[in-house]
């Protein structure tokens, strides 16, 4: 029993550390789209345009998918994303 437990714990300890790396490793014989075209990179973040598109698409799903509270959160996220875009594009020397 103890030997089994040691084996299980060893496997867990080793696999947890390598799990995050698995997503980056390209499959054998498949193109690395991240290197080739900066697509499907494991650590890519959304541009502000992508973020706005995604939020609007989710809000469009409406009450069929989201509760009223969740829709309120999404609308708040939309407001924050629009604020980010406005602040990036604000004119003037001082602002």
């Amino acid at each position, binding site marked *: 029993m103890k030997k089994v437990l040691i084996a299980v714990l060893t496997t867990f300890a080793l696999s*947890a550390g390598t799990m995050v790396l698995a997503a980056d490793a390209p499959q054998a014989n498949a193109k690395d789209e991240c290197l080739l075209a900066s697509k499907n990179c494991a650590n890519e973040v959304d*541009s*502000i345009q992508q973020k706005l598109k995604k939020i609007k698409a989710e809000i469009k799903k409406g009450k069929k998918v989201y509760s009223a509270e969740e829709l*309120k959160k999404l609308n708040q996220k939309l407001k924050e994303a629009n604020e980010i875009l406005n602040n990036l594009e604000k004119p003037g*020397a001082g*602002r």
Partner: protein
Amino acid sequence: MKSSKSLAALAVLGLTVAAATPALALENEFHGMFAARYINSNFNGTSTTSFGDGAKYGGDTLYMPEGKPKKVYSANFIEQRARLQYIAKANADLKLVTHFELDYTYWGNSSYGANSAPAGFSGAGRNGGGAIGADTVNFETKSIYLDANVAKNVNMRLGMQPYNDSFKGILFDADMAGIAFSSSYNKFTPSIGYFRFNDTGVQQDRVLGHLTNDLFLLDAKYAVSNELKVGAAYYLFRNNSDTTNSNLLNDISRQDVKMSTLGLNAEYTSGPLTLNGFGVLQAGTVNKRSTTAWALNAGAKYKVGPGTARTEFLYVSGESGTTGHSNAFYSVFNHIGLSEHGYYDNEMAILGRDKNAYTTDNSIIASAGNNAQGQIGGYIGYDLPVTSKLTTAFNAGFAAVAKENANKPTRNTGSKNKSNYLGTEINAEATYQLLEGLSVGTRVAYVVLGDYYKDVASNGTPVNPYDFKLMFKYTF
């Protein structure tokens, strides 16, 4: 090692790795903007604006053709700006927001750290480094603040943050250090905040918190229905610091301002029509003068044909005298003569603040109070989308000062013009989406100067100003 100790060691290792994994879940957001624009103008980058007497190069500068030749050389230059934003999100309720800026006021200005900006420009190196060799420290911090939902429905922003008023920017719209709380209860959205604009006490008595410029605010919005939203705000401005006098041209001195501002705003949307507007009333004292001032605004948008027609009207009170009770409108300025507010809904490029202006930022009306003269303006426009990638807009504006005072330019004969009419602007804009996030656009603006400026140049009436911009912009 005994098997029980091995077991314990492995259990600890397994738990440590498992516990360490959630710390790798910090969400990183990166956003930014890059823009480069070519400017050809007899207004921007010339002696009547950017290099005028008392003008503070770097933006927010008033058109001052008085005493200059009526015809100025046309400027040709290229301006560049980049903004970078990094947001570190610990979870849905906690994030650190940072925002930086890197500008070249114009290509060819300076390199290797030599500050080529004229006297009066604050921040060595800022906006420099656009000459051959580059290599200049010009990294600016715009804002760094904590954004946290500290309780259910209560959001706190703490630090240097972008914040604007609820009146289309006629009072304040800037990066400012402070603390602001906002909440949302069904249809009611209240906010409360405190900001420290300036602290100039180190120059006198060597103590901080002694000569300060502060804002306390209460702001609330209420959604009466899906169509109608109303709002109200109270702003208390207390300025006892060495900063800009809001009523005089280029005066930086010890201020003594206690100004209460109360405003109401509303927005109504129904089908193709949107109406909005506000009324603001101020009462207090500005440098020992009791002051009552006001501003009124009405705006409308109507979807007609393939596009949207727009109209705006703005009135800001002014004051003709230099003593006694005043009606001059108070807005927020910084300590180097530049306004930290801006009204852009009128879509002007020369007559009013230009939404496309970066470091070079000049206009005929450069502040809400307009050097205590106030303003009256009517503006119309039409946004016309041509294709999914090409949009255009056409605008016209008509503006005058509300009250003539000593800040009005003098004719080359020594007298002042009777007319308060500043001028008429027409402008046109086209923007084409080259790639996702990357656009190229152009804007042309031309002003027929009013008789407010008749014969104020050294040898006659200034030629009518124009401005042409070709703009590339990438946002991500």
